[in-house]
């Protein structure tokens, strides 16, 4: 194997000899790949949010401010008779205020209020159901007496979910187009490499080199260039996320929240690297198949 390795190292060294154009090629590939991959990361993060909320759809029933304890009991009974409802939880207005103080980070503001502006509320946990069914239930509950407002808490999650579907399609289209661009870049680079090494290819054929032997270093070159492009894309995404998270920490602190963007997972990172390597290899293969046969010794 040593000789094969030796041969390939020699050829690859000559191919990578033009450092600047090589670096630019890798940079172009990296940037092209980082666009869809970066969007994918943001989508994954948004998806995480959606999963967190839409997993337990709830309906908040806010009672009117003049509701008495008797009204609350009556409403509770009515709710418990509904077959679509699993259980209900009563949140007295005082408790709601406490919760708001804790979770929103606005305790200073709330502390300054002279009276509790919040109404009593029920949190209704419906049985697992479709989005439309939940919507219908919400309308029904809103008509109950002494109910000021019924709000489907996960409604925004469903809307976001739909938006994410759109985003995913966008990423898919972008990824397909830019993958094609990566193949095209490699195709062209290899075409130039073949042209500059035309003499060597011709002589090698005359001396008895098989097509596989001549093809091999070009395929390696394409794969390595693709892989380096993939690594560049990974670095671009990781550094960008780090910068974004740095800003988010400040923002999240203001809202007393722990939110941060998650980086690419190990599996996704490996997929990115493998995919970019494969695309580089594919571009090289197409180029070699197209151009090598045109070089015949005369």
């Amino acid at each position, binding site marked *: 194997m*040593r*000789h*094969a390795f*030796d*041969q390939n190292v*020699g050829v690859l060294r*000559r191919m990578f000899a033009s450092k600047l154009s090589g670096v630019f090629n890798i940079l172009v590939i990296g940037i092209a790949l980082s666009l869809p991959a970066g969007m994918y990361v943001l989508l994954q993060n948004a998806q995480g949010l959606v999963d967190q909320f839409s997993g337990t759809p709830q309906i908040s029933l806010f009672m009117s401010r003049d509701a008495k304890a008797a009204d609350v009991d009556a409403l509770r009974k009515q709710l418990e008779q509904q077959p679509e409802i699993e259980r209900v939880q009563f949140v007295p207005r005082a408790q709601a205020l406490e919760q708001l103080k804790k979770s929103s980070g606005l305790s200073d503001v709330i502390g300054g209020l002279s009276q509790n502006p919040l109404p009593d509320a029920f949190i209704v946990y419906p049985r697992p159901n479709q989005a439309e069914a939940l919507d219908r239930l919400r309308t029904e509950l809103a008509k109950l007496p002494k109910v000021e407002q019924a709000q489907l808490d996960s409604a925004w999650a469903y809307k976001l979910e739909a938006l994410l579907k759109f985003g995913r399609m966008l990423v898919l289209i972008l990824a397909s187009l830019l993958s094609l661009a990566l193949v095209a870049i490699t195709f062209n680079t290899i075409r130039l490499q073949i042209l500059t090494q035309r*003499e*060597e290819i*011709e*002589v*090698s*054929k*005359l*001396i*008895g*080199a*098989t*097509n596989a*032997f001549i093809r091999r270093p070009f395929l390696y070159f394409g794969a390595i260039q693709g892989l380096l492009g993939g690594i560049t894309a990974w670095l671009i995404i990781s550094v960008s996320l780090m910068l974004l998270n740095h800003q988010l920490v400040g923002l999240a602190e203001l809202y007393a929240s722990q939110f941060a963007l998650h980086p690419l997972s190990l599996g996704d990172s490996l997929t990115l690297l493998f995919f970019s390597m494969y695309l580089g290899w594919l571009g090289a293969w197409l180029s070699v198949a197209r151009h090598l046969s045109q070089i015949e*010794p*005369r």
Partner: protein
Amino acid sequence: MPLREIFHGYGSVIAMIKLNQVHKRYPGGYQALKNVTLEIAEGEMVFLTGHSGAGKSTLLKLIAAIERPNLGSVLVNHQNVGVLKPRALPYLRRNLGIIFQDHKLLFDRSVFDNVMLPLQICGFDYRESHKRARAALDKVGLLRREKSQPIALSGGEQQRLCIARAIVNRPSILLADEPTGNLDTEYAHEIMDIFKSFHQVGVTLLISTHDESVLKNDDARVLALKHGELQT
């Protein structure tokens, strides 16, 4: 391949190269070879002479399957190379050492690496190929220049480098196209002496030349081409 062709080569001596009524016409309509029939035995040294354009290069190219005949058969080591599949070509050429009129050296690497190329192609192991490359360079007297760039070599040295590359994987047939073409007489005789030493170890040689002076002291067979036809 019909049996008749497979056994065609067996005569009194084993024919290494055998051309049978070969015609070669180039796409432009130029008739390079007309009805050429010849036989070269194993271990024989043969000169091919003729004016420029007589078809010497074409004949060598047919043997190396760089060109294919329009008519007739070209047998090398009992193999009809005119009908070889492209994927079989490399294995034919590994058994041939070809010395090109224009050298075809690679100027992006050292003398030593030029000689290494055929060994890398054939897949020799690292140690063995280094040994062989040194031996081949020593044989043509270029061992001291192994680290030089080919561009720094004189015409005669470049020619000898081309020979070293052709013999490094020890082919049984050596084809040389005008090996002394641009060299003065002294260099030309040096080159011829190298060829004679290959002849002595049993290599089959076919050497084309328009320079009759290098033939004078030789008892080797001479084939003369004139306007694509073999003179008898």
